[in-house]
């Protein structure tokens, strides 16, 4: 199933869930649960307790099943909405029960804002600083795009569902994704003083 058909199928399932269809929840779980869990595990590879990722995703699905009306199909794909919901749950969970941090990649390097080899200081992974970052990027769509950029996800297809541009041609999609990413990079360059960032957290 290509992206456009996948998006349409998601929306049909969502409408069926809203209408009280008794098998829609099962079909949604079959179609999206594993993909969302895999995406979350890729985003949080440093987490030593992967069950916390799984629980966060399960919570996101359960909340969606209880309140499907909270999802707005005009803002994002259903998969992106569930991913964002799961990330919110996980970050809340991590802030209450933090895990040890590791001196891995820096946000500066991940976004190509500065040359990380200039600094030999160990810094925390970007997701530890996510609460601060997310305050700088209040738009939920921007936050999802930023999350993928920080994960160094390159394929345009990964951004298409978030930006709701499934109907556009591949060339238009590439251009739109590039514009969105460039705008976010520019914004973060204005906001981030790399020296401050190293000290943050």
């Amino acid at each position, binding site marked *: 199933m290509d992206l456009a058909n996948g998006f349409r199928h998601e929306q049909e399932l969502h409408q069926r869930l809203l209408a009280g269809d008794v*098998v829609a929840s099962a079909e949604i*779980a*079959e179609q999206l*649960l*594993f993909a969302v869990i895999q995406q979350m595990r890729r985003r949080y590879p440093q987490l030593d307790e992967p069950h916390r990722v*799984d629980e966060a995703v*399960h919570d996101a699905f359960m909340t969606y099943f*209880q309140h499907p009306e909270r999802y707005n199909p005009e803002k994002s794909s259903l998969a992106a909405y569930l991913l964002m919901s799961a990330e919110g749950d996980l970050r809340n969970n991590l802030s209450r029960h933090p895990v040890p941090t590791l001196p891995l990649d820096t946000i500066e390097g991940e976004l190509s804002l500065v040359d990380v080899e200039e600094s030999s200081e160990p810094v925390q992974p970007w997701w530890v600083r996510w609460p601060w970052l997310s305050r700088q990027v209040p738009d939920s769509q921007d936050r999802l795009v930023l999350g993928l950029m920080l994960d160094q996800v390159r394929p345009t297809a990964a951004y298409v569902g978030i930006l709701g541009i499934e109907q556009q041609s591949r060339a238009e999609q590439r251009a739109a994704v590039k514009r969105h990413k460039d705008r976010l990079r520019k914004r973060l360059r204005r906001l981030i003083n790399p020296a401050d960032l190293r000290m943050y957290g």
Partner: protein
Amino acid sequence: MADDPLSPQMQQLAALARRLESDEQFMAWVLKQYRALEQLTPEALVRQLEATPEQVVRLALCKKPDLRSSQFESQLEQIAAYTQIPVDGLRAILKRIHQP
């Protein structure tokens, strides 16, 4: 079939189904109530439904049909068609847990 390990995808669906056992809207809750009433193991329930573990996981993720609704039979047929579990067994379980 009970000896076959579930695929990673199916294991995740089964984990979600276990979480949904606390939600009365779901067949997961119905199956848990029924097993308690009849003192059945999960494997015995699978056998009784003439199903596979995968089919029962899919069943657990479905919403519970409303016995009082005029759509009850059509909803039951829809679940049976989706899960490929015989409809008579599903009807019997739903009626059993709603007996006063």
